[in-house]
């Protein structure tokens, strides 16, 4: 595409990546979560594919496949963590370990990143899955019908 589009893409790329990572990482504190942040990040992949062409991103196809599988497996394994009580039991919440701190106070509070048990991990798993899934859909569509696809 034109040099204007390429320059604007280079400018907004880090900002949008940071926003997507923020939405995924703070899914248990602020609005958003794995799916929303993954959609934001996957829209960056779509922007790159539209602006620079899919052929230059062809090497990412295998990575996307691996990330999709890792996300799906991590999600199911995190759900199996609580199988002692029931599927999807949040065993890490309030346990004092990883992400195990209680909320600072009930009611409105600024929140701490180290809370909510398995929720942040599941957010990351679903986020990886959504980034890889939607990104590979866009990439495959752009590579369709090419000789080098």
């Amino acid at each position, binding site marked *: 595409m034109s040099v204007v589009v390429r320059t604007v893409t280079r400018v907004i790329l880090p900002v949008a990546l940071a926003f997507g990572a923020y*939405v995924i990482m703070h899914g248990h504190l602020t*609005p*958003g*979560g794995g*799916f*929303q*942040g993954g*959609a*934001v990040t*996957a*829209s960056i992949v*779509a*922007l790159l*594919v*539209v602006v620079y062409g899919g052929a230059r991103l062809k090497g990412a196809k295998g990575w996307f496949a691996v990330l999709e599988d890792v996300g799906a497996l991590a999600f199911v394994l995190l759900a199996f963590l609580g199988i002692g009580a029931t599927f999807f039991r949040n065993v890490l919440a309030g346990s004092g370990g990883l992400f195990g701190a209680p909320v600072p106070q009930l009611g409105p509070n600024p929140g701490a990143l180290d809370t909510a048990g398995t929720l942040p991990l599941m957010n990351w798993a679903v986020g990886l899955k959504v980034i890889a899934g*939607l990104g590979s*859909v*866009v990439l495959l*569509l*752009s590579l*369709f*019908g090419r000789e080098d696809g």
Partner: protein
Amino acid sequence: MTALHVLTLSLVVIGAALAIWFRDLLASVIALAGASLLLSLEFYLLQAPDVAIAEAGIGAALTAAIYILAIRKTRPKEEE
């Protein structure tokens, strides 16, 4: 507050109508993305920020990108 809702929803309807009305498919996709973005603003006004972020990411960016990629592979004008 009600006036803001009415304005946003009217703009959504106008964007959707423009998306149907345009003969140039690229302009049609841009109008659809604009309608989607305004719809996400309406979700935000209805105090559903989660849905608003998802709508902005999926509806305004990803769908438009997929349509643009599809238009590139086919004809850019609507046929009679």
